[in-house]
């Protein structure tokens, strides 16, 4: 508080302070209002949703929408599908990316520069371009309507970004660490597990939360590769229900809330890592 009162010295500063705070509040309201609506709509009776009166807070609270969603909408099963796909994606992408990032950041064999440029170029490929050939290939392999199809696709599509991000974590580790480990007789695999892994836990958190969000949030691939009730994930189910449940916005909002809460939870817990990863990726290029 002391530093703040020091900052405001003049009358003009006071005005600017108020201006910035007001602007900030307006921006937050615009950004957050839709989520506020979603969560309140999921706990208020339908008569307060489809109405001409604006309610700032729910006049009456009900859990009916959530009961409908879990009892008749089979959301527990679909939630588990999403969780299974997202967590498997996280594990697969860590297994694939950690060794590659270690080679990129620490070992740097000949041609590393070319490899990293090549992988970065892949980010130019639009995801929509891959849908058709992937669909035909997965169909041939009999993987349509399986979660494996989604896990493989998500793991690959998050690879370029995660690889470069984690690679930059590895290259920021002091080289002396690995040199002295080598003198002590560690081979490269041992120094990966004993030295690099424990030091890059924040980087792995970033990679994990990024892949989790990508896998959990995806609509395009999930909608194209899975159509059975058994295999469907949350985003696809919510979109399908808009057509089926029509104007039952309370039930839809409950379904959407179930979909969004894990995202908000992961994001609020890991936002420090995600934000630092995103900025490192973009600022350094």
């Amino acid at each position: 508080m002391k530093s703040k009162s020091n900052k405001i010295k003049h009358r003009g500063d006071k005005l600017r302070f108020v201006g910035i705070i007001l602007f900030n509040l307006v921006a937050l309201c615009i950004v957050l209002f839709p989520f506020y609506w979603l969560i309140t709509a999921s706990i208020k009776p339908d008569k307060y949703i489809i109405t001409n009166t604006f309610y700032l807070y729910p006049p009456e609270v009900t859990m009916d929408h959530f009961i409908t969603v879990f009892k008749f909408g089979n959301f527990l099963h679909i939630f588990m599908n999403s969780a299974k796909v997202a967590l498997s994606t996280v594990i697969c992408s860590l297994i694939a990316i950690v060794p590659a990032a270690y080679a990129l950041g620490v070992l740097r064999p000949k041609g590393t520069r070319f490899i990293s440029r090549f992988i970065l170029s892949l980010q130019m490929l639009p995801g929509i371009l891959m849908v058709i050939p992937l669909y035909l290939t997965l169909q041939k392999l009999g993987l349509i309507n399986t979660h494996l199809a989604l896990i493989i696709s998500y793991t690959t599509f998050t690879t370029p970004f995660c690889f470069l991000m984690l690679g930059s974590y590895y290259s920021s580790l002091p080289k002396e660490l690995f040199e002295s480990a080598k003198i002590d007789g560690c081979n490269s695999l041992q120094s990966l597990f004993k030295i690099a892994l424990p030091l890059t836990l924040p980087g792995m958190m970033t990679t994990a939360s990024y892949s989790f969000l990508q896998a959990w949030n995806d609509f395009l691939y999930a909608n194209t590769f899975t159509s059975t009730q058994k295999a469907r994930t949350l985003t696809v189910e919510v979109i399908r229900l808009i057509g089926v449940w029509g104007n039952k916005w309370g039930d839809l909002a409950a379904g959407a809330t179930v979909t969004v809460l894990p995202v908000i939870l992961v994001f609020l817990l890991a936002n420090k890592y995600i934000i630092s990863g995103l900025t490192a990726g973009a600022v350094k290029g």
Partner: protein
Amino acid sequence: MKKNNYTQYLYFLPVFILIVFIFIYPLCYSIMLSFFDWDLTKPDQHRFIGFQNFIDLFHDPLFLPCIWHGLVFTAFSVVFEYLVGLTIALALNSRFAVLRNVNKALLMLPWAVPIAINSMIWKFLLSPNYGYLNQIFEVLGFNGALTKNWFGDMSTVLPTIIVVNIWRSFPFYTIVLTAALMAIPKEMYEAAEVDGASFFQKFRAVTMPGIASSSAVIVIFHIIWTFSNFDVIYLLTAGGPLNASEVLPTLMYREAFTHFNMGYSSSIGLFLFIVLFIAVGPLYTKFVLKER
């Protein structure tokens, strides 16, 4: 670790396998498909037809509208996302700003939440009869003039999608630009103040050069992502009403998974990629790949 030991390349193996099978192979497959008449429902009638798919695409009555909508959608989205993102980044970077990290986390939510859910919320908030926006306009007395069927009216659909897309995407700019602004040394501003520079002079001489390279990177990525964006438009309007918000990705998806014309659809995808490659490729090499 100077000696070039071949076992070191083994570390790239898992990533390499994934990329070959899910990036390179499908890309080649897609290029091949675009020269074929490939109806998914008639597996015995696939045949090579040369450039016919591309000729058909250029004669498609939806081709020019799709390009135009895509350009409008991309240009307005990227320009305004950048302006909104930068304004908020400047506000957050001001010495009067409070709770910067909480702010950043909360402002990022529209970007972190699934597009499927965002689009569902906006479909309600902007619905013609009980949507909140129309209700607000009614209360303010604009009934009729400003209460519209935002997604259902051919004249308002594209601007409405653009606004929703800006709401969803600007946080990414804010986060990146805040980091870039923080990296500008405070001494540079102090030196400029000593020289008597005004706010705008400081912005031009210190702030703009400081954020130029990160700005280039995010703008380039967003041009690619926006022009090839499928989810936002598909989930809000699916290209309607009457193709008023149709873009190449939505056209492509419908050709593939409603009409099962895999060959024609692939040619749309390839065309989209070539356009992006020609338009953004050189900038991509210059700004994104340069430091690698």
